């Protein structure tokens, strides 16, 4: 057993209100520089929708992630050792700016300088790339809230395998549904971007699993952008280097939550340490598609198991990190309660960002129960979940690699907790029904209380259990502290700019 620690995340989609505060917090700190204007390390998508970049989930188009060969081996869909040579001049799977959008600002000076005339002067959009007037074709969140759209929602790759009736119920007039899907880098256990980088610039930090990109080693070969199935590595067209979400590691190292987590209005985000068995990683990533969710879960170790603690210490995991893992909200959501699921694990990168699938909207497809909501109850108690307006198959395509089992389990448990709470607070549900629901949803009153606590009453410190990073023990600290005196800091001797 080779125990490693990983900073992992949970996003509770039922709590996301789609306000984009996370995106703005990130943008203001990290991507307001030239060449990064179009990047959204954190973005919030409307589902069903085409996402950002357009149709990123369509791997027939983008060729991201891993595929399993006939022989059971894993290989990258976009590159390998031979193709890295032939793809180096022109990467055939690289998205272009048109797949994202051309960033722009407005010619505000025109409001002041326009000659006197019959019409009110306007601020005309100008491209942030060329500086010329721009006819805007797309922008960030261009399909925001556009469920039911024939241009966007109907082209969601997750609609694959849904019947026409199911597709229709998603976009029925006056009954259409959507939910929000906030995304950042998943800081995967088996990152495709790292495996694809010809220069070895991308790496996973051993101590906390954050995936970073070494700017001085990146040569702009662009393989990472094609290889990441989540399209969360971006190309800076000005500096000629790739950039990605750094999980705000300078904030984490000083005990602060990442900016997008900290600013989250709906308090949907959780962060904590998971201990996992790195020696079984490859075996798990090779599992059959329908077993992947369970295989990934099986990698996550119980931080309270003395054998695991002993192995973790032997593997060099700091005891304070183990203590942090024992309080991790992510461990509870993912491993104990099995409420949180990885996005598109069929890409086999083993993402470390998990989502609690949404029950919202609570409206059911058919009327019945209590006014046609998934909160209704009937003889078999849970039938309304099957009748939810967001078809189970759609959620399964997103969070279960097409397998409805784990999604159904998570939704049933959520519903049972709601009914249990309703019994306690409103009192219009009898105790026998509530307890039967808990039992059928593989839940107990104690667990339901804990889920309720961490979902609804969670404080800042409940949501973000940040381990001590122990930078004081870093190898860099063993070097002469005066070495970098009078330097420009962060490895740059001169100001970084596009070189010649």
């Amino acid at each position, binding site marked *: 057993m080779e125990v490693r620690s990983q900073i992992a995340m949970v996003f509770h989609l039922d709590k996301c209100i789609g306000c984009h505060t996370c995106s703005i917090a990130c943008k203001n700190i990290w991507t307001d520089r030239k060449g990064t204007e179009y990047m959204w390390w954190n973005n919030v998508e409307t589902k069903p929708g085409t996402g950002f970049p357009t149709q990123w989930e369509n791997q027939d188009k983008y060729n991201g992630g891993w595929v399993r060969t006939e022989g059971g081996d894993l290989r990258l869909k976009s590159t390998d050792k031979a193709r890295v040579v032939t793809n180096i001049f022109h990467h055939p799977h690289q998205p272009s700016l048109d797949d994202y959008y051309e960033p722009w600002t407005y010619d505000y000076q025109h409001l002041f300088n326009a000659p006197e005339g019959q019409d009110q002067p306007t601020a005309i959009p100008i491209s942030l790339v060329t500086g010329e007037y721009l006819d805007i074709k797309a922008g960030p969140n261009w399909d925001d809230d556009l469920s039911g759209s024939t241009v966007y929602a109907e082209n969601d790759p997750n609609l694959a395998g849904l019947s026409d009736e199911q597709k229709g119920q998603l976009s029925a007039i006056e009954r259409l549904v959507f939910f929000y899907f906030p995304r950042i880098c998943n800081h995967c256990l088996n990152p495709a971007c790292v495996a694809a980088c010809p220069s070895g610039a991308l790496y996973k930090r051993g101590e906390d699993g954050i995936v970073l990109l070494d700017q001085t080693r990146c*040569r702009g*070969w662009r393989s990472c952008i094609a290889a990441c199935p989540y399209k969360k590595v971006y190309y800076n067209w000005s*500096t000629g280097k790739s950039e990605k979400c750094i999980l705000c590691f300078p904030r984490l190292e000083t005990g602060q939550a990442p900016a997008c987590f900290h600013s989250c209005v709906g308090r949907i985000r959780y962060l904590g340490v998971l201990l996992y068995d790195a020696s079984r990683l490859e075996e798990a990533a090779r599992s059959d598609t329908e077993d992947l969710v369970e295989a990934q879960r099986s990698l996550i170790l119980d931080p309270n198991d003395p054998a695991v603690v002993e192995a973790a210490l032997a593997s060099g995991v700091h005891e304070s990190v183990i203590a942090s893992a024992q309080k991790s909200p992510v461990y509870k959501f993912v491993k104990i309660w099995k409420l949180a699921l990885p996005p598109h694990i069929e890409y086999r990168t083993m993402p470390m960002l998990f989502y609690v699938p949404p029950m919202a909207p609570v409206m059911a497809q058919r009327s019945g129960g209590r006014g046609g909501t998934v909160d209704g109850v009937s003889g078999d108690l849970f039938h309304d979940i099957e009748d939810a307006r967001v078809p189970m198959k759609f959620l399964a395509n997103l969070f279960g690699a097409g397998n409805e089992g784990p999604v159904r389990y998570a939704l049933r448990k959520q519903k049972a907790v709601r009914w249990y709470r309703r019994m306690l607070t409103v009192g219009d549900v009898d105790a026998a029904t509530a307890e039967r629901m808990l039992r059928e949803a593989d839940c107990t009153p104690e667990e339901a209380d804990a889920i309720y606590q961490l979902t609804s009453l969670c404080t800042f410190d409940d949501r973000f259990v940040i381990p001590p990073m122990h930078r004081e023990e*870093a190898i860099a600290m063993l070097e002469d502290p005066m070495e970098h005196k009078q330097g420009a800091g962060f490895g740059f001797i001169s100001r970084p700019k596009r*070189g010649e």
Partner: protein
Amino acid sequence: MSSAALDLLLFAVLPYVAMVVFFLATVGRYWNRPFSYSSYSSQFLENRFHFWAVVPFHYGILTVFAGHLVAFLVPRSILAWNAQPVRLYILEASALAAGLLALVGLVGIIIRRSSEPKVRVVTSRMDWTVYALLLLQVTTGVLVAIFHPWGASWFAAVASPYLWSLLTFSPDLAFIAGMPWLVKLHMGGAFALFAVFPFSRLVHILVVPNPYLWRRPQVVRWYRPRPARHGV
């Protein structure tokens, strides 16, 4: 300036100046500004024309460069190979084809760089200098191949000894004196390219990804010393 003095300047002084600049500035840049080593790809800004320009150029220029390198390193083997006319014809024809491929690609690159507004934004003055020098170099190369044929043999017989004389710090201009002006232009251009190399995007040639071919797929960096039995 007399022809002999010009020869002295271009073929006895310029080569050394170029090589000193090349080595010092390349290492200095790598040392001081590692961030500036990149391919500076513009594929992200324009994806279609890019393929038809960049791919033929690179395959063409790499083939031609490899040919020059081999003729420089092992001139005797080349001469032996060329002893049979058929083999010489094959070598000449493929060299010319590769040269034309590079020329077509380069012209494509220059058209793309000047006609695509977004790509023009990321094209620096130094980029244009490099394209001008490369255009001169590839054009003269193709013209030499057409008007002064059998270069596969005379390069090994005349140019290689001259280059080796440079390498041993005893430049022998006797090899140069009789060369046609087209060939002289091509050689002078080559030295100029070496001098410009470290200040341009050409440095990406030096950072081609060789470790990828044998490294393990995943890369992990540790910030703390690790217990001995745990490697990467």
